[in-house]
């Protein structure tokens, strides 16, 4: 997927001022940057929840801009939004079913549900419980389970590490790697830049709605300026390896 000079915003002003970068097929691309840089706005634009004012977004050679959110889903692009993205008052199983809302074929639907449940045992273990009663980490896994119901080619995650303790974080990141191993492309946004970049094959630094730096995960991680600015001081060699 490629973003070309994307300009987007809400109401009066622009939030993204001409953003361009590539998302490598089969890789994990991580967008990092300070709070308010426009990361979530960028993801909303890709999912057609927000209409870009200029520029184009190409996915497998097809233009994404001008499509409806539903059409983007049907192309195989699914997003897990930033925090609290479960239907709290619905059961875990119903939440996962909602992920497959666009699948009309019952047979396909139950097949997907089986697969998702084998990947995420929590979906069957806590299936009848209200989603809101799960812990933060469990909720994140159910969100992942839900997004896999459409068997997406591109999975977009907005701050998957947010609010998770280190142990849960590892489980969640392992699941991100698993999605890649299953042949999916991932685009994620992380506040926790160091952890996010270490997980990723490619990194993009977004600052004030502009791309500051683009490269492999390691290049961005080891870039001296970036280390200073976003990673909390210079990156120690040991930490970067």
């Amino acid at each position, binding site marked *: 997927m490629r973003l070309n000079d994307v300009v987007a915003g809400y109401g009066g002003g622009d939030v993204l001022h001409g953003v361009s970068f590539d998302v490598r097929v089969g890789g994990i691309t991580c967008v990092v940057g300070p709070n308010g840089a426009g990361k979530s706005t960028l993801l909303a634009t890709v*999912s057609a*929840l927000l209409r870009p004012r200029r520029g184009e977004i190409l996915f497998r050679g097809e233009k994404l801009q001008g499509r409806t*959110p*539903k059409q983007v*889903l*049907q192309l195989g692009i699914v*997003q897990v*939004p930033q925090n*609290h*993205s*479960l*239907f*709290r*008052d*619905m059961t875990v199983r*119903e939440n996962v*079913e*909602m*992920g497959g*809302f*666009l699948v009309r074929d019952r047979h396909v639907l139950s097949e997907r549900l089986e697969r998702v449940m084998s990947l995420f045992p929590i979906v069957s273990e806590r299936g009848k419980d209200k989603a*809101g009663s799960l812990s933060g980490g469990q909720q994140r896994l159910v969100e992942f389970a*839900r997004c896999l119901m*459409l068997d997406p080619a591109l999975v977009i995650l907005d701050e998957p590490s947010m609010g998770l303790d280190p142990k849960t974080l590892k489980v969640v990141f392992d699941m991100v790697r698993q999605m890649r191993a299953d042949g999916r492309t991932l685009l994620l946004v992380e506040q926790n830049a160091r952890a996010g970049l270490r997980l990723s094959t490619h990194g993009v630094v977004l600052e004030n709605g502009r791309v500051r730096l683009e490269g492999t995960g390691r290049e961005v991680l080891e870039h001296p300026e970036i280390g200073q600015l976003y990673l909390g001081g210079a990156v120690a060699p040991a930490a970067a390896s």
Partner: protein
Amino acid sequence: MQTLALYVGFGLVTASILCVGAIGFTLQFGISNLFNLAFGATMTAAAFIAYICNAAGLDIWASLVLGSLGAAALSYLLNRGIYLPFKKRTTSLFTLIMVTLGVGLVIQYGIEAIWGATDFSYTLGPGRSLHFAGMVVTTTQLIVIGIAVGAAVVMHLLLRYTRLGKAMRAVAVNERLARNCGIPVRIVADSTWVISGVLSGLAGVTLVMDVQTLNSSTGTEFFILIVAAAVLGGIGSPYGAMIGSIIIGVVAEVSAGFLNPAFKDITSFAILIVVLLLRPTGVIRSVASAKEVAR
């Protein structure tokens, strides 16, 4: 004891009508985030449509069906024609509530302009009074209870087991997320307004079948109790609305019987206030509070 049982019996009939109305009202709030104060006027409109049909010679059941369908159409049109356009222009909850209030008044006084301020009643088939455990109910009232139970069961099945019902619940909890899942929010909202319109119609016509008198303010007066029941149960929650209706219905009739009919609204709201003090989200943790969390 005898009289208490009698009033509880009346209370169950009132609770049934409340239940149908409160489910409809609470669904509208859940899906559209709109406190639709015109709901009572829609009930009156349905009751008048049924009156026209009944006066033209149709039996009361056919009139009930036509009245409810009329209310469904009215409800759909109000949302599409008035509420949605206003929602696009304003985000102020207060403005929207004033709009619904205005719409309600227009309907109510429109009806009064046509039919005047007189009372009407339906021609019902011959009924019998049944005695059961100290309660006295007419066959008509028994059927009204049956309609309410049927409506509650149908709504339960719809919300739990159908695609549309699950989508309705999803939109009520988190509209943005529902859109993110590919749920056609607009169609779901339209369907909700049609369904809640049917419920308002059923409530309006069965109300008149029960109290046997109809005028231009019948629905709006009863609507006060519907609000109490829906808020008591946790606004936005259909199951809460069912529970709230039973409490409010029985309390209202028992206090009306022992004290004075004028106490219906007062005791209902006293109960509502006490419950909300103890449990601000209503009996069932409401969709409204879930929404706050989701934002």
